[in-house]
């Protein structure tokens, strides 16, 4: 998809006045985080499992070439194929070639963030093949021509009325006055339409939550069962996955699964966890005749061992989005590209460039909640700071901010001068603001005071008060 991250500030401003979005985000804030906490409290080993999951992924990243080659060997032994793709264009080409070879007209898809990253739907459509998203949320936003606004709940930004309107517009041949006033009505209509699509599709495309090196299996997790129908009914199953999804064994996958659903939705486990290993076997009465894994690098190999190495542990649970005060205020679309929230602010500059996504690492208060809840213990705030440093080093920071940062750095490195300057500023602001208690406007801080008042300081800095109190103690 085309990124709109450059206009992040405008996107965010629009999000703030979108009433439907506000309601949806309020609901989100009361939903997933509470359920996650309850699930974590029920499992005394949760913190230990986070450590174990992290250790598994660290071993994987250290030996990534070895595990990927082993995974491929197993897939081939079972009659499948692995397609190694350096970038999005190669991956799109590989998927298209498989579909064309199969003479495909329609393709069912279960939700895949890699699919979004490479924009596979656009590529298939441009070549005369119709992709049909089958995850309910993903199906709704596909009808509306929107990108997902959340990693695991792609239509979280929409109200039921908006979905009703979309179904009335897009589902031809149904009675115009049919009942669509309850979520159940909408689900039944989508279920009936998509069941026909499942049965008619020539190729099924799924993502992968994990790739198992030991067995050459692809692990896919859903609550709806849509990935299972997508991979079992059509003649060809195509998996699109990025390199770092590989894990060594079934036991290792199990450890990661134990933290995945709990972190994501607060479920003990998702309804369907499926391990698919190659095509149909002798004696099988169902299953695909072809099994392909399209393996995408897209810059990930180059991230190993560098400042952003740790982000390769991500299992796309969405916990950092659910707990982020910024995401919770503006939603996912404002971020302007496929990945949103803290993980998006770290991934996007690496994938589409710091010039394009430079606003995102700055859209954070660095409160640290994302790192606190990340099941893989990814130090997201540290990485946001890495991007900010690079922005400064590469001269991508606007001149005024740059000058302000330089001025602040100059002061911060000279404690005596810093104390004198801040002491003077506090006394001055304190004197000016004493009468009203707050400033409605402040020169050079118009952006900040546009939406809030600046409380007037009481006349002394924290450090001055601290040394006075310390001095007063016996």
């Amino acid at each position, binding site marked *: 998809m085309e990124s709109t991250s450059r206009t992040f500030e405008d996107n965010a401003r629009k999000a703030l006045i979108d009433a439907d979005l506000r309601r949806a985000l309020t609901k989100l804030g009361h939903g997933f985080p509470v359920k996650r906490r309850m699930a974590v409290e029920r499992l005394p080993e949760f913190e230990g499992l986070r450590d174990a999951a992290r250790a598994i992924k660290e071993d994987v990243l250290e030996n990534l070439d070895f595990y990927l080659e082993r995974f491929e060997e197993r897939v081939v032994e079972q009659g499948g194929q692995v397609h190694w793709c350096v970038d999005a264009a190669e991956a799109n080409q590989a998927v298209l070639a498989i579909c064309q070879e199969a003479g495909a007209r329609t393709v069912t898809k279960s939700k895949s963030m890699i699919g979004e990253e490479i924009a596979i739907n656009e590529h298939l459509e441009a070549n005369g093949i119709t992709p049909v998203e089958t995850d309910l949320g993903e199906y709704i936003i596909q009808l509306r021509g929107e990108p997902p606004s959340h990693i695991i709940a792609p239509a979280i930004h929409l109200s*039921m009325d908006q979905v009703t309107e979309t179904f009335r517009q897009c589902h031809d041949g149904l009675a115009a006055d049919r009942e669509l006033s309850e979520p159940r009505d909408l689900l039944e209509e989508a279920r009936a339409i998509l069941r026909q699509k499942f049965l008619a599709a020539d190729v099924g495309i799924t993502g992968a939550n994990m790739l198992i090196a*030991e067995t050459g299996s692809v692990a896919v997790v859903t609550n*709806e069962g849509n990935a299972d129908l997508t991979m079992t009914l059509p003649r060809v199953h195509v998996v699109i996955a990025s390199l770092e999804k590989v894990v060594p064994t079934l036991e290792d996958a199990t450890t990661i699964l134990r933290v995945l659903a709990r972190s994501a939705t607060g479920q003990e486990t998702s309804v369907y966890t499926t391990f698919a290993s190659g095509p149909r076997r002798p004696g099988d009465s*169902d299953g695909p005749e072809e099994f392909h894994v399209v393996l995408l690098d897209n810059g990930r190999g*180059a991230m190993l061992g560098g400042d952003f190495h740790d982000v390769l542990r991500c299992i796309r649970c969405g916990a950092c989005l659910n707990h982020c005060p910024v995401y919770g205020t503006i939603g996912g679309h404002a971020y302007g590209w496929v990945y949103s929230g803290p993980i998006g602010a770290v991934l996007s500059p690496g994938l589409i460039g710091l010039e394009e996504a430079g606003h995102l690492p700055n859209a954070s208060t660095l409160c640290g909640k994302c790192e606190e809840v990340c099941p893989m213990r990814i130090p997201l705030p540290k990485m946001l700071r890495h991007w900010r440093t690079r922005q400064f080093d590469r001269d991508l920071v606007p001149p005024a901010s740059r000058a302000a940062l330089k001025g602040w750095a100059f002061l911060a490195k000279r404690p005596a001068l810093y104390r004198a300057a801040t002491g003077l500023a506090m006394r001055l602001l304190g004197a000016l603001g004493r009468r009203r208690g707050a400033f409605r406007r402040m020169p050079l801080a118009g952006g900040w005071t546009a939406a809030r008042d600046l409380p007037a300081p009481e006349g002394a800095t924290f450090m001055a008060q601290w040394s006075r109190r310390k001095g007063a103690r016996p």
Partner: protein
Amino acid sequence: MTTGRETILGNIRKSLNRGPLSAERAAGPEHRLKAAKPNLVPARGAVEGAERVALFIAEAEKVDTTVSRVAAAAEVPGVVAAYLAAHDLPTALKAAPDPALADIPWSRQSTLAVRQGGPEGGDEVGVTGALAGIAETGTLMLVSGPHSPTTLNFLPDTHIAVLTTGAIDGTYEEAWARLRAAGSEGPEGAFMPRTVNLITGPSRTADIEQTLLLGAHGPRRLLIVIIDDQGP
């Protein structure tokens, strides 16, 4: 086939500042794959006998699965007929071509019409076995094969799974061990069936305003019938 493979592996090795793993350095990961072993396993599943069955039932019921317990296979048809009647469901069943299911005396319930085979359009109630139950989360493990078509687990509106108490494991790790043992006669690493389905409750979605609804794409309801094969 693609040069992508060499480029990607080369990128990885360049970032890691090394060439392909030497035999010596590969020994660690090699061993990890050959001798797969459990990591930290939650204590919740470390229960035996009646307690394990009780945990399985409690966890399954938490996620909207209905569980019935019977003393012998002969009682399965009665329980199934009662469940279908209570939910006002059709009494034509499609059972997986599994010998264990064929041994159930379905004909004792004259109201049930049972056929064995893979699903066809219009099958509303599917009956399957299961390789294992996992007490830790009330989960079923189903594997594909000539006796167990995967589509039967997903297409019918109602899924009925028949399980013996002896097939209930405490943890996922025990269920994997069971699966490895079941396929141990094949070549190394080839114990894995084409499809392993871990199923925990009926299909669901919360994609419309976070309202939880059962029956998204898979079965709308799940009944597990547990046959006691371990005595009281």
